[in-house]
């Protein structure tokens, strides 16, 4: 077996040193009833590279790759072009096959990029501090609510109807089993929701999303003021981090915690994961943050270096008193994010955002020309909602049969809500082309 360096001769010699007759002896603590005599039944034997590759190519052949079809799907995961150098960098063994930097002297590479990542996240969000990443945006959002509960010692979170339904459900699930209450506002298709009135003295936090799930761009400055007046925190979720190249950052609106899904930068769609959660807050809440933190220090020779720090918040030190149970998170995805954002820089990141907005504007204009289709949004970044004259799900299926990946029917994410049946979410990024928009419009006209 190509991955196993021990030869039979090695095994014999090693057993002799160990003083065992066979490897079975080393398993003698396993109860007899559970010792398998042979390999696990019903599973195939090992395969060569060529055979494995063929099997995966066959899986791939039974999917429609977004590279082969007009593509307008978003809803929390966005198709962007990732430069080849990003993918090269994350494949370098020194990054790929290293672990959490427990030994800082020989993991300065990882630590320094985490420090750069944390700084980038603070800049994008307009916040003071950020951690070294979360699993993704949705779990980050749930951690943010838990953190707000800790900070405020309250147990009621107010959830916007504009929050991504998956995020909402992750928070609800945490709420249910971790024992706090999550009050969910009704679905906010139009982007007009006002949550200020719902805040009360038990409210630990308000969770909103910008742009909202339906694409609306909102100013939460007033909401932030109301939260602070009531002693609650404002949590702003961003599922399309590219929007921060063009939009006023949550930090400037007064957000206390900002959580973003970072997938758009550096990380491919990957059928939903792994992605990377960005998590930023104010300095005063620093010690209540979940997750790893990288900090600057000096070495024995007085040279600048980096270490994991404030680990007294973490499970491996604090155990049942930890701020979170997180251990492994999203290091390599954070690297991809950091390398891509570094390539973009100020100028590139802003232009990328402009380009996304322009493409989506073009799509919106064109889609409004389809009879019966109505644009819901006044404002949007690179994604918006349209109301179709009939249920969106079968329309999307009909277009898929024509190999057009036309967007997400809102009903897929909110199956319990009949009022959203005709709504379709469409996104256009810098990867959208004329050659893709034309068939979409034509296809829609045919199908509707």
């Amino acid at each position, binding site marked *: 077996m190509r991955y196993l360096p021990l030869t039979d001769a090695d095994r014999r010699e090693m057993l002799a040193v160990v003083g065992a007759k066979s490897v079975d002896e080393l398993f003698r603590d396993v109860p007899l009833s559970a010792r398998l005599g042979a390999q696990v039944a019903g599973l195939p034997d090992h395969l060569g590279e060529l055979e494995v590759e063929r099997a995966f*190519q066959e899986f791939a052949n039974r999917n429609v790759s977004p590279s082969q079809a007009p593509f307008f799907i978003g809803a929390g995961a966005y198709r962007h072009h990732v430069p080849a150098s990003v993918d090269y960098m994350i494949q370098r063994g020194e990054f790929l096959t290293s672990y959490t930097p427990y030994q800082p002297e020989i993991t300065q590479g990882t630590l320094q990029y985490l420090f750069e990542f944390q700084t980038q996240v603070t800049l994008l969000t307009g916040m003071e501090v950020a951690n070294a990443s979360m699993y993704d945006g949705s779990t980050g959002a749930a951690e943010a609510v838990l953190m707000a509960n800790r900070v405020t010692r309250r147990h009621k979170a107010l959830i916007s109807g504009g929050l991504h339904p998956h995020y909402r459900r992750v928070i609800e699930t945490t709420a249910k089993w971790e024992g706090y209450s999550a009050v969910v506002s009704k679905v906010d298709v139009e982007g007009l929701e006002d949550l200020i009135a719902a805040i009360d003295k038990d409210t630990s936090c308000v969770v909103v999303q910008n742009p909202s799930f339906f694409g609306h761009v909102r100013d939460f400055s007033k909401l932030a003021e109301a939260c602070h007046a009531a002693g609650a925190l404002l949590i702003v979720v961003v599922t399309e981090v590219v929007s921060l*190249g063009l939009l*006023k950052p949550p930090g400037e609106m007064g957000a206390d915690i900002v959580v973003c899904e970072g997938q758009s930068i550096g990380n491919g769609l990957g059928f939903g994961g792994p992605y990377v959660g960005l998590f930023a807050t104010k300095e005063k809440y620093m010690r209540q943050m979940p997750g790893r933190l990288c900090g600057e220090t000096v070495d024995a020779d007085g040279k600048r270096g980096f270490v994991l720090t404030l680990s007294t918040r973490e499970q491996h030190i604090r155990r049942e008193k930890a701020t979170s149970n997180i251990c492994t998170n999203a290091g390599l995805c954070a690297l991809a994010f950091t390398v891509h954002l570094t390539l973009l820089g100020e100028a590139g990141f802003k232009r990328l955002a402009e380009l996304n907005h322009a493409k989506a504007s073009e799509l919106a204009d064109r889609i409004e020309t389809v009879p019966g289709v109505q644009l819901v949004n006044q404002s949007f970044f690179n994604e918006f909602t349209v109301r179709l004259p009939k249920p969106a799900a079968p329309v999307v299926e009909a277009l898929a049969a024509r190999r057009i990946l036309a967007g997400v029917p809102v009903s897929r994410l909110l199956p319990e809500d009949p009022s959203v049946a005709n709504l379709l979410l469409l996104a256009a990024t810098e990867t959208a082309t004329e050659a893709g928009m034309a068939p979409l419009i034509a296809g829609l006209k045919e199908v509707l």
Partner: protein
Amino acid sequence: MDRSQGRTGGIVSGGAPDMPTFTGNRALQIEEPLIFELGQPGRTGVDLPEPPKVKDRLNGLRRAGEIGLPGLSEPQVVQHYTRLSQKNYAIDMGVYPLGSCTMKHNPRLNEKVARLAGIGDLHPLQPQSTVQGALELIDRLAHWLKTLTGMPAVAMSPAAGAHGEMCGMMAIAAALEAKGERATRKTVLAPESAHGTNPATAAALGFTVKPIPANGRGRVDLAALKAALGPDVAAIMLTNPNTCGLFESEIVEISKAVHEVGAYFYCDGANFNAIVGRVRPGDLGVDCMHINLHKTFSTPHGGGGPGAGPVVLSAALAPYAPYPWIVKNGDAWTVAEDGAKVDGRPLGRLKAFHGQMGMFTRALAYIMSHGADGLKQAAEDAVLSANYVMASLKDVMTPAFEGPCMHEALFDDSFLKDTGVSTLDFAKAMIDEGYHPMTMYFPLVVHGAMLIEPTESQAKEDLDLFIAALRALAEKAKSGTAAEAFKAAPRFSPRRRLDETLAARKPVLRWRPSNDFKQAAE
């Protein structure tokens, strides 16, 4: 040294190795600033077309002013991150015996298949008819995981081991709720040697964690456990093989006792690599167990993730799996997403979308490459290697427990007693020898613990050199005259020992332009 080669032009050997260089670089070891110290306005590492001018629809919320991101060109970015990478140790460089982490070989084949068009580039919300191959792939992996563990169900969505613990313990809570026992069963038992994520998870779910002591053999003290079991106990969280690298020999009795009082058995599967293909946790009475795909199934650790932590579930817990899951209807696969009707009462949702697909792909490629035969062999080689290391060091270092270990060899620091050398010092000296240190000071139940997990991926020759180096260090430490030298280690790494106290006392968590650094004013 100082062996002159008698060469024209006169090569002088030796020299003054500490003579500083002007740049601070030392040949291939290159000092590297932060990107923020390298940027210049207007410079970029991407070229994007000029965006067409459109009337913006941003609701008046256009960002004003600079973000503050540095501008670097592509060559600079490639050089910067290449040079940073060269400051890391990694599995690709040698023995990385970090106990409890299973730092095994990460095949490049897995990276390749994960990037295939039609796999790596799929959107999670594409119409299901357009992702049949992807759903089958997940289902195929699920089948392997269930069969290898002998368990009837698996929840695929958790993002890592700790997330899997959350999933499993929520399922237990949900099962208790269904039985009306959630309010009464508030205790979770866990050995003191448990990984920090276990108590952290239980506590987050509102359980009280009660420690159970170990016996002299490093295993759960069965009598003490039985004494602790009662109608208030929701579950036991037990790592097996445990964090001392030992198989819980009374595991069947333990699970029986746990079940007898109506509690559940959560098994932390971080150490599954020791037994995969040889022992099915389902045969041991386990109710649920997370599997760190980034350990046993080799998805890369990536400098701290991403991982994946699918949770296998017993029949009793299967109805309490979270959304989503994959269902095969005839020839078609579907994802049951939120709102799908099911028999039991679902737990809810742990994560957006369908889980860590990129890790599923890699893990399945690893599994298919090994096959059932190769997985079993890998487990055996991992266990044999650990025992070989243990046997080869036991006369100079001090094994924490008697008898054979599983996939990792645990030592305590008694061999360092009165030497002035600590576990930390010993670990740092290993760095100079070209090795990543073992896990230090974990598990907590052993003084100055050193937990060595060689994995199955190291050649015997490499283990032999590693052993010889550790023997040399141990002997040097015991010589009683080397404490200073150990304290000075590491000497050859990109940085020498770092001041962690300073880092924690005055946290600097981000770069700021040095001129306008201000403390947050609030």
